[in-house]
């Protein structure tokens, strides 16, 4: 039922950007205030309770402690759990859930043949051990991390090494990296494990903010980035809507405006580091040697080019730098010894654009060359051609990663900001946690051997502590959410007063304790949940009374059916077509775009099998999502997404029925069905069902399909007679003609389009 408290007009996320004249003017300062008793007792801020699984009547239904909590709740509402899902449905559910791909017919046969009591547990173990698991669950985390491979804003430039973070996440899930370590690496890997490339790449979690390369007011830009980081960290790790407290004390939760800036202060000295050297020392050395060789051989040519370029380059650079406000220009121009911490941050923010070694450099040789004219241009082109002769000797770029670091050991002061406006400072604050939980300033130690403040380490340690009431609860709830399509707390990034209350608070606490007890192992949580009876129920409604009592199925009296994401639909279809390229990791790929896609935001399609890599490897352009994924609710990457929308639209239908890739997958599936010389129509139908649905058709279904093929063949035969083009399906066995094959393609096409294919049942 709709709750009245939500009707109160509340926080003004963006008022801070307004220069003057908003109609609502919250009071300026972050006022300290007393917390009420109710706030102090608010459920998510209490220590995780030690709870024992309750005793229940239906003991035979209880397979794990999880089931005891579920059964107790059902019993108290007079509900009974649904019957068991049939074994194939359960197997397919586990496959789609854990690896995002349907089981192949031999996997189904093996499972059906295994009558041991732990047959399903073994499947879960096997799936968790497969590399496809990380590809599936890593994608969930990327939603939270607002992961994208481009800047956003006007130019939406590519971030060439962002994909390394995607691989880091996939590997972390596959390795079952303990979640507390996962948190620490992403928040402060550079301070805690500076020598570990993985930990450095992990810090890119806070590098995925949208950014604008032609921003002039870098102080304001810095504030917008800090706001993004503060909102994201608060929501993802703590499940707290810190963002509501940017301009005033939170309207519902005990988050002071001061707390917003206390959290932000941990990041006050943060800057992007897009040059993290990943290669081991000896490789770096080898690269350096080869580069020196190339430099030696090309010195004369490069000097000539440089002489031609220098004046124009200076012009471009001057033009760029003078567009900054005077104080930014001054910070850039200062001698290092004179720079204050904020000067350093301004310098580092501008540096990529004025540093020849950076990808964002505004006066690259190409840019300068384009700007040259007349004889200078001709001479430049000739010299470039000479240089090209030595291209084979050029060792290329060393492997580098992107992430964040601190700009030095002292951070600029952080203030609460009136209305969140970057230059309306109200009062200074020090790094600190939620006042209601920890009122004092955070204790921060300067890290040894790193030019860093140590602030983020302090934050990471507080968040990744077993004593933090939010961290473990929030993460186990996310895991639950992805398994069931709905969390025990239905608002996974809002554990505050305006969020949903947990449907099973004791279970949430028990799981959170268990998570910590089992070494923050995410895979242990998967095992626990999937081996529970609640996960193994049927999804069909076999008790109409339950639907009337709990239409949302919050009490889990059946397994909640949910639709696959666009990425998973594509992966599953590629798999059943036999066309999925299972290669793991590496730079992103560029599958086919719809005809009519504009050039901006478009791309050159990858060649060969790269087109058919898993969807998690498809390039993520912030301003233009891959159209098929977008139509199936892939979230906007401008902010963290804890729960995807699930919409149904004719645009999806048009994509599925008319786009070339889906048709191609249907052809692939048809070719597999025909492979091995199957001319018998019943056998074709049976195999198509097994490949697409993981099950054989019932006799009735087989008959319906048979009749369709019969009827449809007539239509296609007429089409062929009148010279219409038919879809092919690989090599044709004896007794199968082109019309038969095209008929089968259409049949397979509709299987891929069907509800049974795109839902986890």
């Amino acid at each position: 039922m709709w709750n009245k408290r939500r009707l109160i007009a509340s926080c003004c996320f963006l008022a801070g950007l307004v220069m003057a004249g908003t109609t609502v003017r919250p009071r300026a300062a972050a006022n300290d205030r007393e917390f009420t008793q109710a706030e102090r007792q608010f459920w998510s801020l209490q220590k995780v309770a030690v709870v024992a699984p309750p005793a229940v009547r239906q003991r035979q239904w209880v397979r794990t402690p999880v089931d005891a909590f579920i059964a107790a709740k059902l019993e108290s509402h007079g509900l009974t759990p649904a019957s068991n899902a049939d074994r194939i449905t359960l197997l397919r559910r586990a496959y789609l859930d854990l690896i995002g791909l349907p089981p192949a017919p031999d996997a189904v046969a093996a499972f059906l043949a295994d009558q041991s009591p732990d047959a399903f547990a073994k499947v879960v173990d096997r799936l968790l051990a497969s590399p496809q698991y990380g590809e599936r669950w890593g994608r969930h985390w990327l939603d939270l991390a607002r992961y994208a491979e481009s800047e956003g804003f006007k130019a939406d430039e590519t971030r060439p090494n962002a994909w390394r973070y995607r691989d880091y996440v996939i590997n972390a899930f596959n390795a079952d990296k303990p979640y507390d370590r996962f948190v620490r690496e992403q928040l402060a890997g550079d301070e805690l494990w500076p020598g570990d490339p993985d930990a450095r790449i992990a810090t890119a979690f806070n590098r995925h903010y949208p950014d604008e390369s032609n921003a002039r007011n870098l102080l304001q830009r810095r504030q917008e980035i800090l706001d993004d980081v503060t909102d994201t960290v608060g929501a993802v790790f703590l499940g707290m809507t810190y963002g509501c407290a940017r301009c005033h004390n939170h309207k519902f939760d005990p988050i002071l405006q001061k707390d917003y800036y206390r959290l932000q202060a941990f990041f006050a000295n943060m800057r992007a580091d897009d040059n993290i050297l990943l290669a081991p020392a000896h490789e770096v050395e080898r690269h350096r040697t080869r580069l020196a060789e190339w430099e030696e051989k090309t010195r004369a040519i490069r000097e000539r080019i440089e002489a031609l370029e220098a004046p124009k380059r200076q012009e471009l650079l001057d033009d760029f730098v003078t567009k900054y406000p005077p104080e930014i220009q001054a910070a850039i121009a200062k001698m290092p010894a004179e720079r204050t911490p904020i000067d350093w941050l301004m310098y580092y923010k501008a540096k990529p654009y004025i540093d020849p070694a950076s990808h964002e450099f505004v006066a690259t040789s190409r840019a300068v060359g384009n700007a040259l004219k007349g004889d200078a241009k001709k001479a430049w082109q000739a010299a470039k051609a000479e240089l090209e002769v030595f291209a084979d000797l050029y060792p290329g770029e060393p492997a580098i990663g992107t992430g964040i670091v601190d700009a030095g050991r002292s951070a600029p002061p952080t203030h609460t900001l009136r209305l969140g406006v970057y230059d309306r400072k109200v009062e200074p604050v020090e790094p600190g946690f939620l006042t209601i939980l920890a009122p004092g300033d955070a204790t921060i130690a300067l890290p040894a051997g790193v030019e860093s403040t140590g602030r983020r380490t302090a934050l990471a340690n507080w968040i990744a502590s077993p004593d933090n009431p939010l961290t473990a609860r929030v993460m186990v709830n996310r895991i639950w959410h992805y398994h069931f399509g709905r969390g025990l707390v239905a608002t996974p990034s809002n554990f505050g007063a305006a969020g949903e209350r947990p449907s099973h608070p004791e279970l949430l606490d028990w799981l959170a304790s268990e998570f910590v007890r089992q070494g923050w192992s995410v895979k242990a949580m998967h095992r626990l949940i999937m081996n529970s009876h609640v996960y193994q129920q049927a999804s069909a409604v076999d008790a109409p009374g339950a639907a009337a009592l709990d239409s949302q199925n919050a009490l889990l009296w059946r397994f909640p059916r949910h639709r696959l994401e666009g990425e998973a639909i594509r992966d599953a279809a590629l798999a059943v077509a036999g066309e999925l390229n299972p290669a793991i990791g590496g730079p992103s790929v560029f599958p086919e775009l719809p005809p009519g896609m504009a050039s901006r935001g478009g791309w050159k399609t990858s060649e060969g099998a790269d087109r058919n890599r898993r969807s998690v490897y498809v390039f993520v352009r912030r301003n233009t999502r891959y159209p098929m994924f977008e139509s199936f609710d892939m979230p906007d990457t401008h902010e963290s997404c804890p729960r995807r929308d699930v919409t149904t639209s004719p645009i999806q239908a048009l994509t599925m029925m008319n786009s070339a890739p889906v048709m191609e997958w249907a052809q692939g599936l048809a070719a597999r069905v025909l492979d091995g010389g199957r001319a018998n129509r019943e056998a074709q139908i049976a195999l198509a069902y097994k490949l697409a649905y993981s099950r054989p058709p019932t006799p009735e279904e087989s008959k319906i399909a048979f009749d369709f093929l019969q009827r449809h063949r007539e239509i296609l035969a007429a089409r062929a007679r009148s010279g219409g083009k038919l879809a092919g399906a690989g090599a044709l066995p004896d007794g199968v003609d082109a019309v038969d094959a095209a008929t089968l393609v259409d049949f397979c096409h509709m299987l891929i389009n069907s509800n049974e294919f795109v839902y986890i049942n």
Partner: protein
Amino acid sequence: MRIPHFVNVSSRREFLSRAGAGFGAIAFNYLLAQEGLFAAEAAGAAPAPHHTPRAKSIIWLFMEGGPSHLDLFDPKPMLDKMAGQPLPASFGRPITAMGTASNELMPSKRQWKRHGQSGLWVSDWYPEIAQHVDDMAIFQGCWADGLNHVGSVCQMNTGSILAGRPSMGAWVTYGLGTANENLPTFVILTDAGEVLGGPKNWSAGFLPASYQGTLLRREGTPIFHLAPPETVGDAQQRSKLDFLATLNRRFNAANSGDSDLDARLQSYELAYRMQSAAPEAIDLAKESDATRKLYGIDEPETEKFGTNCLLARRFVERGVRFIQLYSGSGSGWDAHENIEANHSKMCRQTDRPIAGLLTDLKARGLLDSTLVVWGGEFGRTPFNEKGTGRDHNPWGFTIWMAGGGIKGGQAIGATDEIGMKAVDVPCHVHDVHATILHLLGLNHKQLVYPHNGRDERPTIVGGRVITSALA
């Protein structure tokens, strides 16, 4: 039964986020009509206006890049007098996009005349639009927050200079649902490049994704995948979809209790209908030569925007609610230098098409129920850039509206004597949005959607309806 927006939004949201609106809402209506399903939820779920709408549709003529109010609708004799002087110290030193604030003031080279019964000023750059001033309310005191194009275009569409919020078209679709069975409710047409910032300008933001606008393509297919593959004929497609419906119906029957299964079944039928309805809507073959001439389709310079204006009228006739036409998409109006050449061209491209649209709508009796909005993401500065251009000016600029509930023949608000800042009846972007929503029958404060713990609304924390604009 009319239900206010804030009652029982939770179940409505749950329902809509599964069935979707926009296209999905069509599915929803279709379900109601065809299957009689969800009767209990229907009363709470069917979108309804908050008050009687004055306009059924909106055509938003978006002059992307920032047209100069100082050279079009907001004459400043004082600017001519002060030509060559610096910006008076009383204005402070604004941070501008190109750091031009210490440049000299630049007069307008335009010839100005009063027009119509109302005697409103329009420059000689817009001679044909000038004939319609008696239908127009000219908001001369508009202001916005962003300095750069991306943020400002984004704000004019979503209320915020940062991406991620729903666009007005998405809010309107959410609030009112669809008024046609075979076409999208919110469409966007462009005439040149990509709109800066791209789809986030017509995004559903945190609303369910199906509320997003549908960008019609400038060339090729207007909607992705609207045409079946070349290996699929109509009878063949119908046969396939019938088989698919059989598969889905059997599956859904065995798995009752999930309404989205049925919504998905119906979405294929809608997609099927769109394949023929959308091409029909955009086929101008049956429009007369006189009509084409009216919109300037017979002249190369006005052909593109004129075509889009004519398409807009056809969409209005077919019940499309929210139509956005970009002129100079990709920042075509961005006259940092040589504003004479730039604006002469952009004005020629749009003057006849827009005048033709107003004439045509009126002749067909559609203007009363169609709100036409003209404007950019900001205006331009009174001081020069590079001697011949003007920089971005979000502090004061002009938007006008006509038709659908607007009291024409009036100027509302004003900028200062040199056109730098809005000083009288300042009309923020949120106020523009509140007014538009009001005319469409929606109260901007009641149109809410819960997101991250807040009831978000289109105007964020601001917005007031400019009541003097209302007829």
